[in-house]
């Protein structure tokens, strides 16, 4: 993700204003104002500002209602316990159902628990509610000033994240082919591949959704073409990695290990260049082309004779060609 001065400024202002308001208006109270402002600022940034605004207002209202209820029940331990159990249970179910909304439900249950803890001290209902409302209001106002156009930079950030994720996935997939320890630690490698594959799936789907929702706001339309290239690059990486399952005799893969290592080396550099927005990558393209040619030689001279099922290497080389081709298309 790219560095964002706006976001840093937004966070600094949320902190400064909430601390100032808390110490100026409610110096002797538990810092509900700071807590609410900071909790709201940590919520995931939904692209659509007005949707984000609705969610924050709903969260603020829910907090006000539940905190009031908790304070009303506080003299009666039984009622208070039931209230606590219902809220915790509901929130736990919800954050299991929607892990992306974990923050929202965690904040609700956390605030209710904090209110219960504060019962031991003297608590003023009105001041507590005003602090929560003011804390929420500070964050909402600052989001309105700083993050109303949050989505416009999001395409490039997402594209960069996707490149990083694909680079890491490529690293794991090539490691599973090249590393001798793969057979001994197959679950470790596969777990890692699973995590990066999931990340790529997630980012690809998110980028696709963004483009569908905000296509009109896009100044540079090449991102739409790039998305298709990303999909195909991802599929080609997966296709290339099938060799680890198709080849029973791992010693045959070792015959091409020098070329595979070189291919991965240049592919990694290619990813680094794209991440750094360097588009003059002809030398890398040529290097990859030369390695593919060398790999074809190894195939014709050695693997075609040595391998039990030589055809899978044709498919493998084709996937490598496809990877190279997609990298070039993304560059241009």
């Amino acid at each position: 993700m790219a560095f964002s001065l706006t976001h840093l400024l937004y966070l600094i202002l949320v902190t400064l204003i909430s601390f100032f308001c808390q110490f100026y208006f409610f110096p002797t109270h538990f810092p509900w104002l700071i807590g609410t402002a900071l909790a709201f600022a940590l919520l995931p940034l939904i692209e659509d500002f007005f949707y984000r605004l609705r969610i924050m207002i709903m969260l603020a209202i829910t907090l006000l209602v539940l905190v009031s209820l908790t304070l009303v029940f506080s003299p009666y331990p039984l009622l208070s316990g039931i209230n606590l159990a219902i809220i915790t249970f509901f929130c736990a179910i919800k954050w299991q159902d929607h892990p992306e909304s974990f923050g929202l439900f965690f904040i609700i249950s956390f605030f209710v628990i904090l209110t219960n803890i504060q019962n031991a001290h003297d608590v003023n209902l009105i001041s507590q509610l005003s602090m929560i409302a003011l804390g929420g209001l500070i964050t909402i106002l600052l989001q309105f000033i700083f993050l109303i156009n949050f989505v416009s930079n999001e395409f490039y950030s997402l594209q960069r994240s996707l490149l990083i994720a694909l680079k890491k996935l490529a690293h794991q997939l090539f490691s599973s082919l090249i590393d001798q320890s793969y057979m001994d630690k197959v679950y470790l490698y596969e777990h890692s591949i699973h995590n990066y594959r999931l990340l790529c799936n997630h980012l690809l789907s998110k980028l696709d959704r963004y483009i569908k929702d905000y296509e009109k706001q896009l100044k540079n339309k090449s991102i739409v073409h790039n998305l298709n290239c990303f999909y195909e690059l991802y599929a080609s990486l997966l296709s290339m990695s099938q060799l680890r399952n198709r080849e029973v005799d791992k010693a045959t893969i070792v015959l091409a290990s020098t070329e595979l290592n070189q291919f991965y080396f240049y592919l990694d550099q290619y990813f680094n260049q794209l991440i750094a927005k360097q588009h003059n990558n002809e030398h890398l393209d040529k290097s990859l082309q030369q390695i593919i040619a060398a790999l074809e030689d190894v195939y014709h001279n050695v693997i075609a004779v040595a391998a039990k099922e030589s055809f899978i290497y044709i498919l493998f080389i084709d996937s490598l060609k496809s990877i190279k081709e997609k990298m070039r298309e993304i560059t241009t």
Partner: protein
Amino acid sequence: MLSRKYSYAFAITTTVLLSYCLIHFYHYSNSGWLFLTAFLVSPITRGPSLRQGLLHAILLMLTIFLANFLLLGDKFIPFSTTILAIIFICIGYFSYFARSHLTLNYYAPFLVFIVLFNAYFDPFIYKNFMNTMFDVLIGATIGIIIPQIFLLRQPYPNFRSEILPYLHTMMEIIEKMSQPKELIKPVTFEIDKFKSILSILTKESLYYPIWVYETGFNRAVRSSYRYYLINLEQLFDLLIIFQNALTKTKLDKKMIAAVAQVMQGNFILLNHLKNYFIDHQLIQYNDEQQDDIDSLDKYVNQHFPHDIDYIEFDSSLIALQQLIRALKDFRFILLKLYLGLPKNV
């Protein structure tokens, strides 16, 4: 048997309720650390609850220890306020920076901030450090032990309930793919379909039994569960490869019929697999059901060149071979999974 989701909810609710009852009768620090610790340590993310609870408890205690030095109380308010503000800005910026892949696994930094925040406004922590730590220890014990009663006592039912939606999704995708009219759509449509497969996979991944991979999971059964998961993911990879190959080649009518037949066979086998996880019925699978693969092979051998040197230069032919190979591998893995299932569960 409760589903994993409800087991989690019960575990967290019981932990919170028990600690709530306890602080009414017994606590040292007089500031609710017992209650708060129990809630923060109880299972928030997925995975083995014992290991995760222990890690969270250690992190929480280290943070309180740190807070005791950093947030030095009334005399140094400007210093401790600045430190707290800086830590918040760092964590806030981290959550922004990692927003595209922020999952529940990133709970730890937020836990550190919550503890520091509470410690900053707790007037007793630096005066009453040992008592606070004692409360934290009791809270952590509750937060770690209670979930053990509810979670992962029987991994198989959990595994089964989480694997079934996956099989169901895969069946839906294959059912669509196996219709001949779906195989002759233009290339742009194939890319859209490819996107929709990934989108479905991303949604389903929320219920993926990731705890099977984590260290600390039952050593006796983990290798078989992991083997199963790896192969299942392999099936999804093959679907993606198949769909990608479809975008690069055009199939004639007979080829479409042959591919659709193989897809139907895969669908039936997947259905057997799904039924096994529902009622543990193993249906006899005989060699005749492999006829579809043989007829696909026969058709390809008769109508397309199989000289490797020729295929190498024709990208459409290679894409076709990628497609056929993905289909065959799919069947092979399905058979491996189905025939390897135990008869008595």
